[in-house]
């Protein structure tokens, strides 16, 4: 493993200043479960690792039924799924945090790191997209916010500019009669990277028969996680039915641009987009209907 320097930043301005000063070869270290492996396997050149875990702002985990969730960039998966209110409000996020790596990975890895790693197959990102999350970013010129679906720009690449870092994610409070669902396909039952991932959120009417709005996002079928905008829009105003869901699944398949690699073939992935989109939508709808 190449040599690098390590520094534990105590404040956001300190971390931002370090990032700005050290340039491209500085990386934020949060859970480290991707970064350490990438540096060890010489897949990423890093001269400086800036550990942010002692900065208070990135450890915030605050849910308010009126304003929603603030999820600090370094909050580990296990803390997220340990919170019952968050489990109730954002079940798709919980689906994802429980399948990122194994138990030991979930003790270190967080959704913020999952996002910044910008893997096309990240399980954490489709739920953020369907939950309409935004990224709070600090940089040399202060803070800015960015919709999460604009954050990843290419495999391993993000919209963060020089000196910028992710502080937290903001997720709006869930609407009435809404729920969400995330699932992925892997050949085993754990410890795999998604061959395809699909997240869905739905809001139903009071009778829970008609879809008021829906949102679908996909993983591992394009260079970045995808917001299936058209497929989502197709569902608004439609009655819950197999036909509606099939139409959305077909629209999701239409935007998938998968590759073939050791985890799956392009044709398998395209097929799975249809299967998983249906299952995610049905799962989310079922959750709305199951709720008291």
């Amino acid at each position: 493993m190449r040599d690098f320097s390590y520094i534990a930043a105590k404040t956001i301005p300190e971390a931002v200043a370090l990032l700005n000063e050290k340039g491209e070869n500085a990386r934020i270290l949060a859970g480290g479960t991707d970064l350490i492996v990438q540096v060890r396997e010489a897949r990423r050149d890093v001269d400086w690792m800036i550990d942010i875990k002692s900065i208070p702002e990135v450890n915030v985990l605050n849910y308010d039924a009126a304003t929603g969730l603030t999820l600090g960039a370094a909050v580990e998966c296990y803390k997220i799924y340990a919170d019952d209110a968050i489990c109730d409000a954002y079940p798709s996020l919980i689906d994802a945090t429980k399948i990122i790596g194994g138990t030991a990975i979930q003790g270190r890895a967080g959704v913020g790191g999952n996002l910044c790693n910008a893997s096309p197959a990240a399980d954490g990102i489709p739920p953020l997209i369907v939950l309409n999350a935004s990224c709070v970013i600090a940089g040399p010129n202060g803070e800015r916010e960015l919709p999460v679906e604009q954050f990843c720009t290419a495999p391993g690449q993000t919209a963060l500019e020089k000196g910028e870092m992710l502080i937290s994610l903001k997720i709006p409070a869930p609407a009435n009669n809404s729920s969400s669902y995330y699932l992925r396909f892997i050949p085993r039952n754990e410890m795999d990277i998604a061959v395809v991932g699909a997240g869905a959120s739905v809001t139903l009417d009071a009778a829970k028969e008609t879809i008021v709005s829906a949102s679908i996002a996909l993983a591992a079928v394009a260079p970045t996680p995808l917001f299936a905008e058209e497929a989502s829009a197709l569902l608004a105003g439609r009655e819950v039915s197999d036909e509606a869901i099939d139409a959305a699944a077909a629209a999701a398949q239409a935007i998938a641009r998968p590759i073939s690699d050791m985890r799956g073939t392009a044709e398998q992935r395209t097929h799975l987009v249809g299967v998983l989109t249906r299952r995610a939508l049905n799962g989310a709808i079922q959750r709305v209907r199951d709720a008291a």
Partner: protein
Amino acid sequence: MARRSHVQTTLNGETVEFLCEPRQSLLEVLRDELHLTGAKEGCNNGNCGACSVILDGRLVNSCLVLGVETEGKSVETIEGVADPDKLHPIQDAFLENAALQCGICTPGFIMSAKALLDENPNPTEHEVRYWLAGNLCRCTGYDKIVRAVLDAAAAE
């Protein structure tokens, strides 16, 4: 030679100090600097669980933690699980159930099982299997390991 940092941490209840390079993982520090070789390297990328330790009460892969990150933290390893004169019930259950063959994965499984039972003293078989999915064993087919953990839970 890379610079070495001074780190102070609590290891199995005792304060220890060590010097390490930033690139040395906690696993390397435990094995090469502190000579605690119970945690094993099976894959060095978080996929086998042979290096599992408990960091500030949470199960982690020590290959995915930098040694320097443990400053001021508390680390529990397999060497600290048993009392001086008595094995931990999980260790007894592994022996009684013949839940090890080559034994290379055993320290990781015991740490993982301990973290599970510390949090959930009465897990179902499915909960045990879900929790231990990050620990690979190639010898046993897991049957006796899962039974050992369920037995240990019942005994505690």
